């Protein structure tokens, strides 16, 4: 298996991130990856469809979810202030972080204040985005990932390739080899339950020892300050319950208005993500419960911006902030199914990543700028999105932003770009009937060196990508309009 170590969109050298096309070439050639992914996405797709089928009010739930998220995005300042007040009132501490650096400093500071050399973590994509583990390592603090998949990729020194199943690209045999080497687990079979038990034993000790737990958040309620972690394995319960200090990092967009709004999201999320009626464990906590000794006695909530306010500023693009990280769009995406998550070079892969990543890091970096093009615009993502994010629409919108950025900010190079020149010429041709009809004739004549028996087998230059795997139909002798004109006699009268 190829170890992917190219810089991702959120690393310091994000400008050097490869484009999707470049990385996809590598992934597509990995036959094992293709098999693993194909099997997994097809399984989960069928399961999700069944879980949704069962719900007669699914469309109404989706609409409510969409509307609630819209309410939040339009009034985010107010909801953040309410959340801060509620969490504080419940005995928690709220921190604000403008960017990854600030967030990491805050979290490391809390860990150091409690002399923690080790922390346990429950899956949080936000901390992958901020590269918290690496930062903590630099501060002498070891972060243990406790989600089975996260543990697998942490031990392998890899990065996640799926929002929900980060090790979706690895099969059982590969995992067994890894556990034998890194956990010293002898006599291990490749049975998933044996592998899982090895992880249980290894991590149980970490949970009991840890002074600080770090989590992400699926939702946080402005009205009550109740934070929620949705999970399956119990590592989330461990991390948010056992260590005396809990730090939760959440993007500012994760706030929802009221406690009762969970009735919408807790129906939408499990069925969309793991295709279950309900995921095994969901923890909801409201500040700290010192008197009853239930859970941590110190709770910190870190509110992270890190580009989110930039996304918010784009009226059409901001719907990406409604994402509840279910990963249904990944599982139905025909592009993702074949390239896997690594080709996106971002902690947010798949269709949602293709609209979130370039917006979060800003337009103008070749790697992230290529992501809105990593789609055939088939619309399968929009169809399944539990909060009705119109991903194809945002993809197209972002293609426009990327193109305009190149044209306006690219100087001479931007204007001389061959694609740009060709598109401009074609737009001119299409805007004038005479030019258009002339071009049809010219193309028919111009294709003669390439066409054989009504087909073109090889195209030159940038268009060669087409003919690598497909013949191109040659232009026939008569256009439709020529036929029409001949049939109806008068060339200038459009009517029959």
């Amino acid at each position, binding site marked *: 298996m190829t170890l992917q170590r190219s810089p991702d969109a959120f690393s310091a050298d994000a400008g050097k991130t490869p484009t999707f096309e470049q990385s996809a070439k590598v992934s597509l050639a990995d036959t094992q990856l293709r098999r693993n992914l194909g099997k997994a996405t097809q399984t989960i797709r069928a399961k999700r469809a069944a879980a949704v089928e069962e719900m007669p009010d699914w469309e*109404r739930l989706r609409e409510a979810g969409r509307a609630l998220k819209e309410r939040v995005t339009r009034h985010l300042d107010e909801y953040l202030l309410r959340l801060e007040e509620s969490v504080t009132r419940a005995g928690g501490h709220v921190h604000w972080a403008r960017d990854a650096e600030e967030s990491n400093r805050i979290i490391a500071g809390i860990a150091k204040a409690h002399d923690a050399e080790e922390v346990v973590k429950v899956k949080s994509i936000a901390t992958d985005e901020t590269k918290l583990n690496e930062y903590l390592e630099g501060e002498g603090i070891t972060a243990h990932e406790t989600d089975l998949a996260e543990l697998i990729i942490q031990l392998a020194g890899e990065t996640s390739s799926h929002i929900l199943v980060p090790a979706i690209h690895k099969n059982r045999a590969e995992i067994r080899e890894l556990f034998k080497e890194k956990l010293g687990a002898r006599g291990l079979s490749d049975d998933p339950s044996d592998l899982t038990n090895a992880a249980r034993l290894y991590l149980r000790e970490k949970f009991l020892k840890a002074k600080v737990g770090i989590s992400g958040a699926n939702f946080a309620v402005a009205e*009550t300050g109740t934070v929620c972690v949705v999970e399956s394995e119990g590592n989330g319960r461990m991390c948010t319950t056992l260590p005396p200090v809990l730090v939760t990092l959440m993007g500012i967009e994760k706030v929802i208005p009221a406690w009762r709004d969970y009735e919408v999201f807790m129906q939408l999320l499990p069925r969309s993500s793991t295709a279950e009626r309900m995921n095994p464990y969901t923890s909801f906590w409201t500040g700290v419960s010192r008197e009853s*000794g239930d859970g941590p006695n110190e709770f910190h909530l870190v509110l992270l911006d890190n580009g989110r306010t930039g996304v918010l500023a784009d009226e059409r693009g901001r719907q990406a902030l409604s994402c509840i990280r279910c990963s249904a769009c990944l599982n139905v995406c025909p592009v993702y199914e074949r390239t896997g998550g690594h080709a996106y070079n971002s902690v947010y892969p798949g269709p949602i990543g293709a609209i979130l990543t370039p917006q979060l890091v800003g337009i103008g970096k070749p790697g992230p700028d290529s992501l809105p093009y990593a789609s055939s615009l088939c619309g399968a993502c929009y169809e399944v999105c539990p909060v009705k994010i119109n991903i194809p629409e945002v993809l197209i919108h972002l293609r426009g932003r990327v193109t305009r950025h190149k044209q306006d900010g690219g100087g001479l190079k931007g204007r001389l770009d061959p694609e740009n020149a060709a598109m401009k010429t074609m737009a001119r041709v299409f805007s004038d009937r005479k030019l258009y009809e002339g071009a049809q004739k010219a193309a028919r004549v111009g294709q003669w060196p390439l066409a054989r028996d009504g087909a073109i087998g090889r195209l030159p230059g940038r268009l060669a990508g087409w003919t690598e795997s497909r013949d191109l139909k040659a232009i026939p002798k008569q256009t439709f309009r020529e036929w029409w004109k001949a049939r109806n006699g008068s060339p200038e009268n459009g009517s029959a």
Partner: protein
Amino acid sequence: MSTAREEILRRVRRATRDVPEGERPEDVAVERGYRKEDDAPREEVVARFAERVAEYKAEVRRVKEADLPEAIGENLKERAIERLIVPPGLPEEWLPGGVEVLRDDEERRLTNEELDRSDGALTGCSLGIAQTGTIVLDAGEAQGRRALTLLPDYHLCVVREDQVVGLVPEAFARLEETVKGEGRAVTFISGPSATSDIELNRVEGVHGPRTLEVLISG
């Protein structure tokens, strides 16, 4: 230099300049046309709860209230539970003889190591949700702290029939008071701990109790 808080709020306000000045959050319409209450007969709701809990590979039995102590005894014996964790407020009559009872109470809280070394926990619950086969714990009577049902490898949970609601929205409605009042933690449990991280094969039992058994009493 402004604080991060001020700056983020300023950025948010600048980014949402398109929102009309006078618009209140409530002005953004939210159509809640989804089902709020299950109108199925009680017996059907309870039967659905039992069926769906069982689908998660949790063992479920329905017993008469009077037979509950006996049923508990049977389950514990079957699983060879010797050291049993018991939360405050659990009815005394539920406790069978012949097991070592480890009580967690305010004067003497069990340590995580004691919980880890126990064989299992016996609790009641706050609610059951039929639609999803979910058991809800809210750290109240007969449930105790979250750690009690997390560290032991076995969890036996008693659900009274009148605690079972039909749909998810009914559960959140019932829990509202607890959350807003005392702010107690709420845990949703739907089957035993599980993972599908390896080739999407479901494996029961990762970090939480590997065995979940449910007795529905009525």
